[in-house]
C-alpha cells in the first residue's frame, strides 16, 4: 500500500524547478519509518549537491530546492528504487553537477588518473631513494 502511495506521489510530482511555489514536500523534513531505508536515503542525500547553495549537500541545506530533492530521494527509496538508479535519474535531469560522486566519464578521467599517478610517483620515488641509499651504504 505504501509503495503504491509513494508511486502515486511520484506521478503527481511536477518539475522540481516549479516546486518552489508549492507547499513544502512532506519528506523534506520527515524521515522514512524503516531505519534501513532512511539510512540508505541519507547516504545518498549526503552525496547529492544542493544546486542552489554553495558546497552543501541536499542532506544539510535549508534551501527549499534541497528540501524538494530530499523528498524525491526519500519517496523513491520508499518505492523500492535503488540509490544508484535515483542518482542516474537526477544526473540525467540536472547534469553531472548534482552528484558529488564524480561519474567515470572521459571528462572526469583526469580526476581518477591523478591519484594513480601520485601513487606510482610515490612508489617510484621511495624505491629509488631507498635503493640508492642501500647501495650507498654498502
Amino acid at each position, binding site marked *: 500500500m505504501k509503495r503504491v502511495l509513494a508511486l502515486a506521489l511520484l506521478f503527481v510530482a511536477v518539475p522540481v524547478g516549479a516546486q518552489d511555489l508549492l507547499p513544502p514536500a512532506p519528506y523534506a523534513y520527515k*524521515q522514512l519509518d524503516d531505519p534501513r531505508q532512511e539510512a540508505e536515503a541519507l547516504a545518498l542525500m549526503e552525496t547529492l549537491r544542493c544546486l542552489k547553495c*554553495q*558546497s552543501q549537500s541536499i542532506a544539510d541545506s535549508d534551501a527549499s530546492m534541497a528540501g524538494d530533492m530530499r523528498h524525491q530521494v526519500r519517496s523513491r527509496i520508499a518505492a523500492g528504487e535503488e540509490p544508484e538508479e535515483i542518482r542516474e535519474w537526477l544526473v540525467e535531469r540536472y547534469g553531472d553537477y548534482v552528484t558529488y560522486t564524480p561519474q567515470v566519464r572521459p571528462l572526469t578521467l583526469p580526476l581518477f588518473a591523478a591519484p594513480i599517478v601520485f601513487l606510482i610517483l610515490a612508489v617510484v*620515488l621511495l624505491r629509488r631513494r*631507498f635503493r640508492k641509499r642501500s647501495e650507498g651504504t654498502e
Partner: protein
Amino acid sequence: MIAELGLAMLWLAAALALLQLAAGAFALSARGRELGGIVRPVAVVQGVLCALSFFALIVLFLRTDLSVKLVATNSHSLKPFVYKLAGTWGNHEGSMLLWVTVMGLAGSFVALFERRLREATMLATLAGQAFVSIGFYAFLLFSSNPFERLPEPAAEGNGLNPLLQDIGLAFHPPTLYLGYVGLSVAFSFAIGALITRDVGPAFARAMRPWVLGAWIFLSLGITAGSYWAYYELGWGGWWFWDPVENASLMPWLAATALLHSASVLAARNALRAWTVMLGVVAFSMSMIGTFLVRSGILTSVHAFAVDPERGSFILALLAIYIGGALALFATRASTITEGARFAPVSRESALVVNNVALSAILGIVLVGTLYPLLTEAFDEKVSVGPPYFNPMGAIFFVPMLVVMAIGPMLRWRGDRAARVSGKLAIPALAAAATALGLVALAPTIKPMPFLGIALAVGLAVASVLPLVGRELKRTPLPTWGMVVAHFGIAVALFGVGSDSAFSTEKLVASRVGETHAVGPWQVTLSDIEPVAGPNWTAIEATMAASHAGGAASELHSQSRNFTSPPLVTSESALLTRWNGQLYAVLGEEADDQRWQLRLWWKPFVPMIWYGGLLIGLGGLLALIGRVAHDVRRLRAEGKIAYRRQRQGR
C-alpha cells in the same frame, strides 16, 4: 583625515618595500655592499608603517565613518563593538590590508632578531620578502584601495553578513592569515638560501619557528572554521570539502610536510632540495588559497569580491611568484646536493614516507579543488565532494598513519626493525582489539569509520611510546610537542570515525509539550517564544533534554531574522557531555502550530575539535622549546662577545 593618513602610510610602506628590494639586491653584488646596512632598518619601518595604516582602518570602522566607501558597504552604526572591529577584516580590502600588515611585521621581526644566517643570505631573504610584499601593496593600491571615500557620505551602512556576525568567525580569518603569512617568511628564507646557495641546517633552524608558528595558526584556524560550520550552518556537518575549506587545508598539508622535512634538515643535514621545494610549495598553496577565496571564482559567503579585475591581478601575482620561485629552483637544484645519507629503516626514512604521503594528499586535494573550475571553463559542470576526497585521500593517509606510529620510535641514520617491534606490539594489539570489539558490537559499521577508529586507538597508544622510559622532566619540549600533536591526530580521527559511524538523526514536526527520542536522549519541546537581540529578532525554542531518566537540561535554539542585511539564520543548541554532543535546531513553522525540529546525538564528536586544539598545543610546545633554545644561544653568544670586548680593552 584618518583615511588619507592611512592611505599615505600605505603608499610610504610600499615605497619602502621597493627600496628594501633594490637595496637588498644591490648589496648582493660587489659594488653595492654598503647598501646592505639599510636593508634591516628599512624592513622594520616598512612593517610599522603598514601596521599603522591598518590601525587607521580599524579606527574608521570603530567610528563607523560612513564617508569611507568600505565602511559604508560593510558596517552599520548599530552593530555590536566586536563586530565593528571584526568588520575591518571581514571584507576584501580590509583582509588584504591585514595580509600585508602581518607580512610587514613578520619581515620587521626577522630583520630585528634573525642573526644566525650569513649576512648575504639574510639580505637575499629580506629582498625576497619585499618582492612578495610589493605585489600585494600594488594589488591594494591599484585595485582594492580600502581608504576610498564616497562622493557623499552614506546615511547608514549596509551591515555585515549575519553569518559572519559570530565571535568564532570574527577571529577565524586573521588566524588563517597569520598562518598564510608565516609561510611567506619560510618562502623568503627558501628564496634567500637558493640565491646564495646556502641551504643547510642553519637555514632550516632559522626557518623552522616560522613554519611552526604558521602551522599552529593554520591548525587552530581550520579547527575553528570547522566548528563554526558545525554549529552555525545548523545541519551538524563539520567538513564539506568546500573549495574554501580546501584553500586552508592545502597550506596546512604543505606546512606539515615542510615542518617534518625541515626537522630532518636541521638535525641531520639531509633532504636539502626537498625542504627548499616544500618552502616554495607551502607559500604557493597560501597564495592559491587566497586566490580561490579572494578572486570571487567561487561564489560563497567567503568570497566577498566578485570582480574579474581583482581575480586577474592575483592570478598574475601568483604566476610571477610561483613561476619565478620554481624557475629559480630549477636553475639551482643541480647545485644543491641531497645531503647526509640514511638507511631504509631510520627516522629519516619514516619522515620521507610522511612527506611523500602528505604531498600526494595535497596533490589530490589540489586536483579535486581545481578540476571543477577547469571543466566549468569549458562549460561542463562537475562536482567533486566527499565520495572522491575521502577514499582517495585514505589511500595515502592510512599508510601514513601506520608510519606515524612507528617513525618516532626509530633512530636517526639507521635502525633495526627488531629493536622496536616489541614495543610497537602494544599499539598494534590495541588497534586489533578495537577492531574486534567494533565487529562484535557494531557489525553494520562501514569500512572507513571502522578503519579510522581502530587506527586512531592504535595511534593514540603509539604516540605516547616515545615518552616511555624517559625522564619526563628532562624530555625536551619539542619531543613533548610531537607526542601531543600526534596524540591530537589520533583524538581527532577517533571523533571523525565515531561521528560518521554512530550519529543518530531525528527530524520531527513537534507541538509544544511533545517528547522525542534521539539516541539515548529524550527531548521535549517545552516552549516557543519571540526574543530580540541588538540587531535581530528571533523565535526561540526551549527544549528539555534528559538522559536515561536523569535530570533535564535546558537547550535554546533560535531562528534569527537579521534586518541589515535581511537574512534568516539558525542558531543551533548544543549540549556537550563527555561521550558526545546533543545537537538541536529549530526549523520553520510547519502546519497546525507544529515546529520543525532537527535533533542529533553525535557520540564523541567534540573530540574532532579537541584533537585540533591538541595539535595546535603540540605545535606551541615545540615552538616554545625551539625559541627558548634560540634565546639561550643568543644570550650566550652575547656574553662571549661582551667578554671578548672587555678582554680586548
